[in-house]
């Protein structure tokens, strides 16, 4: 990690996802699309989902912004694709809680396991200004899923 300290916000996992983001492609066949912008820093993401039988069958996105927002969206994509919507939203809740903890959260083993690579963002929670970056993709996913639910109640 080029000599960054262990407490650095920039964990290897984050940099990897930033340099080689997953699911960073816009689906042709999708049920909902959202575009989210973080007005304070200009980060943005366009995200499309395909829902089948109450599960996220596919998800793809494009975006611009800092490593935190882009990597977090990449990690989120890995986590939710293939999951049923309820589980995906539960993960979103878990991640949101972690981010809003101001760095004082102590993740239980179970939660840590569920969040997989997303645990690497724990350090971001200490920086209020960056929390929104880490949440951008997650919020977009939630918004997109809500849209599909609205469309097919």
């Amino acid at each position, binding site marked *: 990690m*080029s000599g960054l300290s262990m407490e650095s*916000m*920039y964990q290897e996992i984050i940099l990897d996802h930033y340099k080689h983001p997953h699911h960073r492609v816009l689906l042709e066949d999708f049920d909902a699309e959202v575009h989210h912008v973080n007005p304070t*820093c200009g980060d943005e993401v366009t995200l499309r989902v395909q829902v089948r039988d109450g599960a996220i069958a596919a998800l793809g996105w494009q975006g611009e912004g*800092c*490593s935190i927002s882009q990597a977090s969206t990449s990690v989120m994509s890995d986590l939710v694709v293939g999951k049923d919507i309820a589980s995906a939203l539960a993960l979103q809740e878990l991640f949101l809680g972690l981010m809003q903890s101001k760095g004082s959260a102590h993740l239980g083993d179970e939660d840590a396991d569920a969040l997989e690579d997303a645990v690497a963002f724990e350090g971001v929670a200490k*920086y209020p200004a*960056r929390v929104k*970056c880490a949440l951008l993709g997650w919020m977009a996913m939630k918004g997109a899923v809500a849209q599909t639910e609205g469309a097919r109640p």
Partner: protein
Amino acid sequence: MTSSAFDVEAIRKDFPILTREVHGRPLVYLDSANTSHKPRAVLDAIEDFYAAHNSNVARAVHTLGSEATTLFEASRDKVAAFINAASREEIVFTKNSSEALNLIAYSISNATTTPGAERFRIGPGDEIVVTEMEHHSNLVPWQLLAQRTGATFRWLPIDDDGRLVESSIDEIINERTKIVSFVHQSNALGTVNPVARLVERAHAVGALVVLDASQSVPHMPVDVQALGIDLMAFTGHKMYGPTGVGVLWGRYDLLAEMPPFLAGGEMIETVDMAGTTYALPPHRFEAGTPMIAEAIGLGAAVDYLTAIGMDAVHDHEQALTAYALEAMATVPGLRIIGPDQPVDRGATISFALKGVHPHDVSQLLDEQGIAVRAGHHCARPVCVRYGIAATTRASFGIYTTTAEIDALVAGVARVSEVFA
């Protein structure tokens, strides 16, 4: 590096916060354009006021009240002398630059319903001109003034080097122009604008000139009479003074005719349920209990700067700017946004780093103890102009050293490595 009389190490000792560590490293604070630190003398002035003289001003005949009033009004004298105002009555204390600029804009729209203030009325067909490099605080108030009055909001464009497009000046500032408001030194680009050129054109067409001096007053000698402007705003917290205090300066004859803005205690002459008459400037524009301790602290900051001398301050920062521009040019992938030569520009340097978002640059610098700012610096149109979401900005002050600039340059190189 710096003028012989200027002793940056001695100055650093006056600033308690500079002994701080961040992430286990000595603080390298390169965010003075955002807010500056405060010397011990300013902290002591505030403490002494509250602990020994605290009282409301102007309203009391008792001893503490008269001491407080004397201290507060002495600060007005100091500020007036600092910018060479023709009289102390030309200094209005506000909460920050933003309030000072809004004060002007609201006073102008209030002229519409104030008998006797016809000279300040604007409306459909009239034009208000700013520049594309304004801080939002000198941009949105004028957009809103246009919205309130039906006047047209226009702006002078900037070129690829971060300078005003000279050829646009005579076209955009024209017979319809009533107000020209522009930044003296840009907080986003460092550019120092050609005040004389703009004042000449604005006055030739009969427009009022408002100068946003938030980023110049702390860094160079500013003489309002020599500049020939009409109104000016600046802010305490960027000039080594406290938060919560700013200044509107205006030519007395203008202030005397301007309708009031905020209404309340102390800005009145006499109040009657049927109607009210207003005090003369500056009190007309200072409604309610003023920022007493803050104005006194600002007076101490002015004393501090005056003792160093604004010429020496300017020399020091010009030298830092030249040093930094040269050093930063050596960093691979680093591009300066704004003038890249140390001419007509101040010690505020925005840049882009190839492949790394400004928020990541600044955060990774912070992990090395180096504080810079990332974002649109409240001048989003500048970023739009250059097609970028944000810049990273390093900005210097009287306590900045070349060693700190070296740390910045090394730190940025390190950031590039991490993201390579």
